[in-house]
């Protein structure tokens, strides 16, 4: 069977940083001249990536896991120690400028706007660097403005923007030239909730338009509703690569419903009606918590099991979250396999 070549293809991708291990101060520097010792840090350890055009992939991992390093190698900023990368058939660090024409990057922790220029000037410089015609630029800006709301930002100097405004402007700068591949590297870091929502909505919009999106984040709320595929990296190594939904369905099956009752919680009787579920008392004697496998029981049946025993004042349902799974992966409780979501222990 002919396998189509992926848009982004990385094999055995490795990055090792070598740092001089020298003591502090002048004595340390002098000693290092004679006795050269180095400390090696493996930031990325032989990972495989294969991303097709139009995919939206979440690249998740704790701090220091190697996410940003991977993105830097994919964008051509860093040269891999080992392994191959092909982005749209090009090797990023060898054909950096050609590769740059097709990609947009948002660095969460630094801006790519010119610090002392108004946002509009930055965008116009990018227009010129990418060789866009004025009409194409205007249309692109209009579309970005509709989603991000840029009109109040255009005349402000980048260094005077608040963090939320800067992120919106950075998104515009990354996308003004309509790239087919977008790397969002920690785009919601440090933002307040309203701006985070806006950024996430924007990412969904990108995905809907067919742009290939690689979203690196350690904020797991970012990926719900945006990405269909999740890659988990931990300590430079690939922990999981597969479908988000199947991960949730396999590892995050537990759902819980909280009932607030008018009178005392009938733990025993509910428990008898729902043998597969776990029934416990909440913070007070009138609160009941039922934890169950959402594929085994429906919320409706749980509700029906509680109603006969008394008046229900309030109900809340907590859905399974990817956080729980990933937290378990980070904590080492779970070791996931690839693609088919089978646990490898």
């Amino acid at each position: 069977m002919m396998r189509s070549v992926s848009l982004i293809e990385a094999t055995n991708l490795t990055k090792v940083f070598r740092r001089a291990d020298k003591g502090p101060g002048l004595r340390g520097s002098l000693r290092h001249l004679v006795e050269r010792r180095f400390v090696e840090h493996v930031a990325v350890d032989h990972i495989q990536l294969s991303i097709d055009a139009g995919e939206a992939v979440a690249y998740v991992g704790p701090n220091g896991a190697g996410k940003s390093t991977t993105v830097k190698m994919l964008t051509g900023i860093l040269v891999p120690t080992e392994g191959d990368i092909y982005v749209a058939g090009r090797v990023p660090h060898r054909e950096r400028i050609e590769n740059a024409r097709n990609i947009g990057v948002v660095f969460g922790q630094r801006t790519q706007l010119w610090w002392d220029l108004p946002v509009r000037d930055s965008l116009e410089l990018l227009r010129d660097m990418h060789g866009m015609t004025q009409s194409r630029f205007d249309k692109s800006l209009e579309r970005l403005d509709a989603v991000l709301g840029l009109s109040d930002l255009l005349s402000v100097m980048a260094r005077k923007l608040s963090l939320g405004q800067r992120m919106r402007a950075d998104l515009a700068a990354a996308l003004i030239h309509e790239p087919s591949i977008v790397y969002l590297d920690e785009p919601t870091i440090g933002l307040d909730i309203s701006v985070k929502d806006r950024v996430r909505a924007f990412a969904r919009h990108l995905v809907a338009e067919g742009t290939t999106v690689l979203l690196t984040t350690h904020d797991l709320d970012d990926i719900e509703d945006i990405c269909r595929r999740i890659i988990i990296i931990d300590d430079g190594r690939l922990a999981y690569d597969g479908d988000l939904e199947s991960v949730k369905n396999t590892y995050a099956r537990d759902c819980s419903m909280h009932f607030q009752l008018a009178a005392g919680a009938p733990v025993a009787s509910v428990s008898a009606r729902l043998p597969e579920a776990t029934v416990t008392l909440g913070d007070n004697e009138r609160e009941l918590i039922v934890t169950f496998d959402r594929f085994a029981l429906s919320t409706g049946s749980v509700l029906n099991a509680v109603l006969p025993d008394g008046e229900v004042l309030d109900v809340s349902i907590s859905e399974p979250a990817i956080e729980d799974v990933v937290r378990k992966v980070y904590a080492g409780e779970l070791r996931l396999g690839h693609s088919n979501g089978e646990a490898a222990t």
Partner: protein
Amino acid sequence: MGKPGRPRRRTGLYRAAWLYRRCLGAHLRSTLEYEADFWIMSVTAVITQGIGVIFLWTIFRTIPLINGWKFWDVVLIYSLVVIAEGLSQLFTQGIWNLSWVVNTGGLDPMLIRPYSPVLQVLSSEVGMNGLGNMALGIGLFAAAVSHSGVSWSAWRVALALVLLVSAALVKIGLNLVTSCAAFWLRTTYSMFPFSMHRLGELTRFPLTIYSTAVQLVLSIVLPFAFMSFFPATSVLGHGAPVWVGLLTPAVAAYCLFMGVWIFRLGLRRYESTGHLGRACRVCEAGHLRRPG
């Protein structure tokens, strides 16, 4: 909002130059917003360089010649340094930010744009003090040539202009070469390029006053002498073999080439090690010097 799109695609050298002009223009516009700064920088530049001329004038009140050089000859040499500095400040001031850019990760955004990172760095700032220096430098140059007793033909004028521009390019090239230390000295500010700039300022005075060793360093190792002395001797027609001054354009090309080459080496190093730079807090706060 804008002009109609240009149908012709810009490529290669033309594109690089056009984008350079665009970047400079954008930074110039934002610099001009600070009117007070504009005047302060221009005036302080004139004062700084002007004091040097007054100094020379004071010395020449007491003696007629230094090493065989008359006052106006020395002023000519001096003016070439001022002009070279003025041009490098107006058009390539961004280079002095290289240490900061490299060691705070500011190079990453530049690397994902489809434009040469060297040119991006060079065009990232316009030094308004360059205007004051240009004004003073050209004034001094004009005064010096009018007193020099040189007969001016069209060819000589053309030669002088070529040498003037080449001299400035020597300075720019050497600025680039020395600034690339940023890729190896991992601090957010390094005094190394500035100290080399001060070495170059030795060429404000006739090269012949220095010992042989110093003359060799300034002619061959870091050819700052081609920023002022040798071009001046060609214009004046004495002081050194005329053909040496005529080498200035070649030396300029060499310095620029070396600068770009060393930058590429530095970039390769950056790409393999990342920007794990140390912040030098004393450096940031203590001595962010650049040519005045």
